[in-house]
């Protein structure tokens, strides 16, 4: 029984780690701007495309990887400056629409550049090698992802809790206006938030696409939405929450993908049910359930609406 589940569990942990890296970006931005950055999934996808094109131009990998991360961070910064900053005083709905517009623009831009064809992601040596753990054969990236994710999250939590910038971020997310009055440069804090979020999404994209090998303009949408669900599940605004939510979603999703085989082998069902179709739907069902049962998520802070 365990031998059947284990490979799915393992890839679930890996995917969960990748979702976590994206989810942090959503969570941090939401914490500060109260904005669902719908374009975040597309930033993740653009990071993948950048990697494809830069490595194809013959740049050695050890320059390519940092370069992609820098460019992705820059992209996050530019998006914030161009599309969200001018709307700072506008109603929340306008900013959300702007985010959707950015997502649409990025997808079309990539469609134009790639011609709408699947792009093959370059193989990063070592992490793409195969490895056998117990009953599962997988790529090394599967094992590396959760470790790397946890390290990065640890670093981020340290940054938020023990540096001046981190203190400013916490202040801004508590109270936007008051922190402005206290002399915090809001625009700087917001920019840093976007840069960190995009940077993590860039790392996430390297891990994710090493696993899935092709990138196309729509490949950011689904992981983006799922990472968002993870952020909501864990309590939006809370980084550990986002990470735990992402792991839960990643694991559940992959187990549902293999549920047919697991149930067949354990003799619970006689023939396949085609349940794998529901692996995506599950995430959203979970979202609706959590929003109805506990809208603040697992670790979210309780907000009080004042009349």
């Amino acid at each position: 029984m365990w031998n059947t589940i284990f490979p799915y569990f393992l890839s679930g942990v890996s995917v969960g780690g990748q979702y976590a890296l994206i989810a942090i970006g959503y969570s941090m931005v939401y914490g500060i701007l109260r904005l669902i950055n719908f374009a975040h999934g597309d930033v993740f996808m653009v990071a993948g495309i950048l990697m494809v094109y830069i490595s194809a131009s013959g740049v050695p990998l050890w320059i390519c990887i940092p370069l992609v991360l820098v460019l992705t961070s820059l992209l996050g910064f530019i998006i914030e400056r161009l599309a969200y900053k001018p709307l700072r005083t506008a109603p929340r709905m306008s900013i959300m629409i702007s985010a959707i517009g950015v997502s649409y623009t990025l997808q079309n831009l990539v469609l134009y550049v790639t011609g709408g064809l699947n792009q093959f992601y370059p193989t990063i040596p070592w992490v793409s090698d195969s490895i056998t753990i117990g009953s599962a054969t997988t790529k090394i990236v599967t094992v590396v992802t959760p470790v790397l994710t946890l390290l990065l999250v640890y670093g981020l939590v340290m940054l938020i809790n023990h540096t001046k910038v981190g203190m400013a971020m916490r202040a801004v997310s508590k109270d936007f206006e008051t922190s402005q009055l206290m002399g915090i440069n809001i625009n700087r804090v917001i920019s840093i938030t976007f840069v960190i979020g995009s940077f993590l999404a860039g790392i996430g994209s390297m891990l994710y696409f090493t696993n899935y090998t092709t990138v196309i303009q729509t490949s950011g949408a689904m992981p983006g939405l799922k990472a968002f669900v993870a952020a909501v599940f864990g309590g939006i605004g809370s980084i550990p929450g986002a990470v735990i939510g992402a792991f839960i979603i990643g694991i559940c999703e992959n187990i549902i993908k293999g549920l047919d085989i697991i149930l067949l082998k354990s003799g619970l069902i006689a023939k396949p049910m085609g349940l794998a179709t529901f692996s995506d739907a599950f995430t959203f069902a979970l979202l609706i359930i959590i929003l109805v049962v506990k809208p603040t998520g697992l670790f979210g802070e309780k907000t009080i609406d004042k009349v």
Partner: protein
Amino acid sequence: MSNVDKKKFSTPQIISAAIILAFYVLVFIAEQTLAPTSMIFTVLKKGATYALVAVSMNLLNGFTGIFSLGQAGFMLIGAYVYAIFTIPLTQRAAVYQYYNGGIVQFTLPVFVAMIMSGLVAAFFAYLIGLPVLRLKSDYLAVATLGFAEIIRAIFQWDKIGPLTNGSNMLRLFPTFNDFNIKNSNGEVVIYLSTLVPLLISGVCIALILLLINSTFGRALRAMKDDEISAEAMGIHLASHKQLAFCISSFFTGVGGAMLAMYQTTVQAKSFTTAMTYEILLIVVIGGIGSVTGSCLSSFLFVACSEWWLRFLDQKQVIGEFEVPLLRNGFRLVVFSIIIMIVVLFFRQGIMGTRELPDLFRKKRSAAKKGA
């Protein structure tokens, strides 16, 4: 699209009604004279479909203040219900080739099937509305978005294949071309394939307009402006939201049926989030809170994406000079940039919150609205 009022109709309203009537007459004449393959008919057909969906989205987002992103899901339901109930019995074996002809072994008339589409979509909206409408702005947006994804997955499930044909295409159902009146030899006598969709969409939009201008519509607008004061004035928030959500979904479902007719085939996997985003952007370009704006921008949007900006996708040579950058997909890039400019700098959209009759009113009242 005229406003029915107990008083006499005002001059601007009469002018507006005349414009709309003239539009329909023009379409009718054009259809009899121009070649039926002309691009303008494609634009009008798809535009009519999108206009209906955009207006029903506007009813939620612009007039009720419910930021719903589930449109693609309700369109999918509408399109499937229409297709399932109208595929001719003789064709079922061919369409449901993997499921022994499917389990639905009867057909409904086209218009009955369209109303069914709306009703089923509204029923699903009722179910999903029970939990989801309790949520606040952006959570509601994501929950409805998630709902659309769930619907898309369910409709592709192999087990309900006898009903939905699994992940295979539904086809061979009556399309817009079947509205053309033919003689016994199969030659088309009167072309109606563009006029009828425009009429269907027009009637639905007129119904929505009547609704917006009713007591119920005013209650919705009060809720949009301030939920707490609206509640204090005796408006039952939950039931009003639920009803608005169902009505909007009804018309979105009908729009889905029209989309099925326009596309001539239906496949669940094409009803993606991107479709919802497109409709949202149409609403934004037209002006959130303006029915006229949504209609205008639907036609504009479809015309630009299907017709006017097509040249951007091909190589263009002016004299000796080959225009750079033009190749497949460039149209969409230009298009996205235009949309971003509207979103960022012209947040009012084409119409703001004005309607067609407002355009013919004196400056004074226009200034009052703008203030």
